[in-house]
C-alpha cells in the first residue's frame, strides 16, 4: 500500500513539474523560424522520463493531466484538440519505437517530437479544411528533430541521475 501511495505522490509531482515547464515555455520569447510559435516541448522531458522509468500508463496519465490542466489554466478549448492529437500520436510512436530497442532516448524523442508536430498539423488541416497547412511540416519536422535531440538528451540525463 505504501509503495502505491509513494508512486501516486511522485506522479503528482511529475505532473506539476510538467505543467510548470509548459507554463515557463509559454512565457519564453518565441524562437522564430519561418513559423513563429515553434516550441521545444519541455514538458516532454517528464513524459519521456516516465515512459522509461515506469511505463506507458504512467507517462500517458501525466501527459494527459498536464494537457488538461494547461488548457484550463492558460489555454482555450480549441488548443485542446491540437495538444491532444500531438500528445497521443507522439506517445504512441514513442512507445512503439522504444519497444523496438533500436534507438536510445534521443531517437525515441526525435520521432516523438516530429510526430507531435505532425499530429497538430493534421488536426489543423482537418479542422480548417486546408491541405496547404501541411506545408508547415517542413519547418516543423526540422524543429521537431532538434527539440527531440535536446529532450532526449535531457531525458537520458534524468534517467541516469534521478534515483526515483
Amino acid at each position, binding site marked *: 500500500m505504501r509503495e502505491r501511495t509513494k508512486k501516486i505522490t511522485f506522479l503528482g509531482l511529475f505532473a506539476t513539474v510538467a505543467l510548470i515547464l509548459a507554463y515557463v515555455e509559454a512565457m519564453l520569447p518565441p524562437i522564430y523560424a519561418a513559423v*513563429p510559435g515553434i516550441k521545444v516541448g519541455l514538458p516532454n522531458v517528464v513524459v519521456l522520463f516516465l515512459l522509461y522509468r515506469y511505463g506507458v500508463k504512467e507517462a500517458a496519465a501525466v501527459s494527459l493531466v498536464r494537457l488538461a490542466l494547461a488548457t484550463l489554466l492558460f489555454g482555450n478549448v480549441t*488548443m485542446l484538440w491540437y495538444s491532444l492529437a500531438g500528445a497521443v500520436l507522439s506517445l504512441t510512436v514513442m512507445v512503439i519505437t522504444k519497444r523496438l530497442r533500436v534507438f536510445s532516448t534521443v531517437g525515441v524523442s526525435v520521432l516523438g517530437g516530429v510526430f507531435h508536430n505532425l499530429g497538430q498539423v493534421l488536426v489543423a488541416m482537418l479542422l480548417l479544411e486546408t491541405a496547404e497547412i501541411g506545408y508547415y511540416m517542413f519547418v516543423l519536422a526540422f524543429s521537431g528533430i532538434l527539440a527531440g535531440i535536446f529532450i532526449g538528451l535531457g531525458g537520458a540525463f534524468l534517467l541516469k541521475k534521478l534515483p526515483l
Partner: protein
Amino acid sequence: MKKNDLILVAILLLLAVAGFALFTSFQTEGDVAVLLIDGEETARFSLSENTERVIETAWGTNTLVIEDGEAYVREADCPDGICVAHRPISRVGETVVCLPHRVVIKVETTVAQDAPDMVVQ
C-alpha cells in the same frame, strides 16, 4: 544505440531539407488570397489590389492587409499573435493561419498551371 540515433536524425533532416528545397523550387507567385473561416471559403481578394479588411469571427478579430502583391495580418486580438508575426505571403500554397480564430488566408492562382503555353495551328 547512439549510432542509430545519428542515422535517424541524418535521414529525417535530409528528407525535411530536400522536401523543402523541392517544394520551394516549384512555387509560383499567386494572384489571389483566399479567406477561410472555420474551413469555409468566405472571400477572395486579388493580390494586385491593395485592400484592408477587418475579419470578424465568433472567436476574435483579425485585420487582413493586401499590399504590393502580398497578404499579411496587421493586427489580431488572438492570445498568441502568430498570425501577425508571420511574414507576408504571396506564393501559391503559402498560408497565414490564426488557429484560435480559425482563420486561414491562403494564396492561390487563377492561372491554369498545366494548360498549354502555346498552341500552334
